[in-house]
């Protein structure tokens, strides 16, 4: 079922979705685009390349409150914070970011230990995937194509969208998406030409080249294992690294968090907050010992976690090539180049 609407009628679509639940969509902010809960239908803006912060925050927000308590009172009086979720529509997610949800599922539910917050948010959410604009040249930082993700890959979306000038085409992918779509009666059927355009566009997505090479995950994992103790390599790689948290915070597949108690006067909240392996205190132990005091150890952890340990443990690379870490790195450290250097000629080829 392929439906369509026009870009100028986006507010109408937004209003219909907001009536059914919570709409989270890209909006333009000072520094660029970000996914936000929509309060005004006119905020939704699909003329964007990608957001600064990845849409993982829709399922794994930077701050998640668990328990509220009063200091000095009994623990029995503490109250868990209930998640009362309305149906949520995550609108305009790029294919590489949709893929990241599947990688994150491994950690938040796939290993058998289920994170109820992630799970509930996932279940409540319908994902509107959105193809990259293939008339644009790919951003120099991106390399999702290398990781087998097409620029118009509908996999993982419930409804997938392609924009053709001012026409927005929407196709149902899953039963969950179909149920929603049948309720959006103002969407009109696409013409036969448009159906062809849509199908061709998706097929073409795999030919759209970002930085690219063939990836042999086994070879990558092996190469990183071989150079683990090569301090000279890692020191050189991390010479520029500031050891800030930008790369991990914008990353769609970084999932580390810290649980902390924060009190204001006597009102306390136990909450989960994003943490980053690039921070000095991330591995600080209660004894005072810190196994990763050097910048190179921390950068090595970040890269090897994604491109080595994750392959060994779960068989997949924990990276979707969205390019955010490279794009927002204050000193332009490029994870693609690091992998390229580690695996040497086996990795990089710009087509």
């Amino acid at each position, binding site marked *: 079922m392929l439906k369509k609407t026009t870009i100028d009628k986006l507010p109408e679509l937004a209003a219909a979705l907001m009536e059914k639940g919570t709409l989270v969509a890209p909006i333009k902010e000072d520094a660029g685009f970000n996914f936000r809960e929509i309060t005004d239908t006119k905020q939704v803006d699909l003329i964007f390349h990608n957001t*600064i912060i990845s849409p993982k925050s829709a399922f794994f927000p930077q701050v998640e409150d668990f328990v509220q308590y009063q200091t000095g009172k009994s623990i029995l009086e503490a109250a868990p914070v209930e998640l009362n979720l309305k149906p949520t529509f995550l609108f305009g997610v790029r294919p590489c970011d949709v893929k990241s949800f599947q990688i994150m599922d491994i950690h938040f539910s796939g290993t058998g230990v289920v994170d109820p917050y992630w799970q509930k948010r996932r279940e409540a959410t319908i994902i509107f995937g959105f193809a990259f604009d293939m008339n644009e040249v790919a951003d120099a930082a991106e390399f999702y194509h290398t990781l087998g993700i097409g620029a118009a890959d509908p996999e993982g979306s419930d409804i997938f969208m392609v924009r053709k000038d001012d026409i927005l085409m929407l196709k149902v992918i899953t039963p969950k998406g179909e149920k929603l779509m049948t309720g959006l009666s103002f969407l009109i059927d696409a013409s036969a030409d448009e159906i062809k355009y849509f199908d061709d566009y998706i097929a073409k997505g795999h030919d759209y080249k970002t930085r690219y090479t063939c990836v042999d995950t086994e070879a990558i994992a092996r190469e990183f294992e071989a150079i683990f103790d090569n301090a000279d390599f890692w020191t050189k790689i991390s010479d520029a690294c500031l050891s800030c948290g930008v790369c991990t915070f914008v990353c769609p597949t970084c999932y580390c968090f810290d649980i902390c108690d924060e009190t204001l006067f006597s009102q306390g909240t136990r909450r989960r907050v994003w943490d980053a392996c690039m921070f000095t205190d991330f591995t600080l132990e209660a004894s005072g010992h810190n196994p990763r005091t050097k910048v190179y150890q921390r950068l090595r952890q970040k890269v090897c976690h994604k491109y080595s340990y994750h392959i060994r443990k779960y068989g997949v690379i924990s990276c979707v090539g969205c390019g955010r870490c490279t794009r927002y790195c204050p*000193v332009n450290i490029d994870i693609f180049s690091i992998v390229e250097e580690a695996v040497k000629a086996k990795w990089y080829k710009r087509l």
Partner: protein
Amino acid sequence: MTISFKQIEEKLKTEAKRLLESGQVSVVLAYGKGYDEKHPMPYVARNPSDVANIVFNEYCNYNMARYLVRYPAGTKIAVAVKAADSRAVIQLIQEEKVKREDLVLLGIPVYGMKNPKTQEIIDGKTTGGLYNPVLYDILLGDEVHGQAIQLPYDVLAAYESMDKEVRFAFWKKEFDKCIRCYACRKACPMCYCDPCFIDQNKPKWGDKSPKFHGNLMYHLTRFHHLAGRCIDCGECSRACPVDIPLYLFHKKVARECEEMFGQAAGMSIEDKPALVNFRVDDSDKILE
């Protein structure tokens, strides 16, 4: 006159090679190739053969003084410095984090540097009205003279015209964006504390979550820790992934400090940092 970035790059390479070959320094902090031309990186040359990777273009904004404290005391380092960067070196010498005799300063007189994200020319925002390094051993080009100068505090006009409420609302809006990645403090050459107050948890000085109270605590404390020490390189604001204009507050404090103590940070190796120095004729304005 126009700046020849290529010429500066060549001179930077020549001097770096000479210093490394003669053993005068073991490390050269300069700029290197990134993943494309618009995105060069801070670069460390340790061998004469590394020098080929050095580049210099209008996007090499990095304040390489930020990396000085990373090397063990006594390491002989050559560091490429633009105007503001040289002030950072001076300030670090004043604060006894590095020694003058361990450093060779490769001064770069330059203007027209650009922010790669916005393509905007950053001179007025960051160089403190200077185009020539304040301190250097070797100058990698002719001193810049006659170029129109945007005074360091000119960009404060709009900010200073805000009244107290408007100003608070302005910072509330800006700090609400903060994601607490700490890129600002990590990019800052004067933020070398280990551990930073915000990372301590005994006692805990501020919340970890990126909510307004914690963000305010973090930024205001950092602003005040940099009072009289900020050398106006603007790296904090450029490092910020959500574009918080941190430089405004730093400049405002720098201006007040300069008016009160008659001294700008990192302008003379003979100075003592304004806020750790006591002079009988110091201004009492701060107490009023």
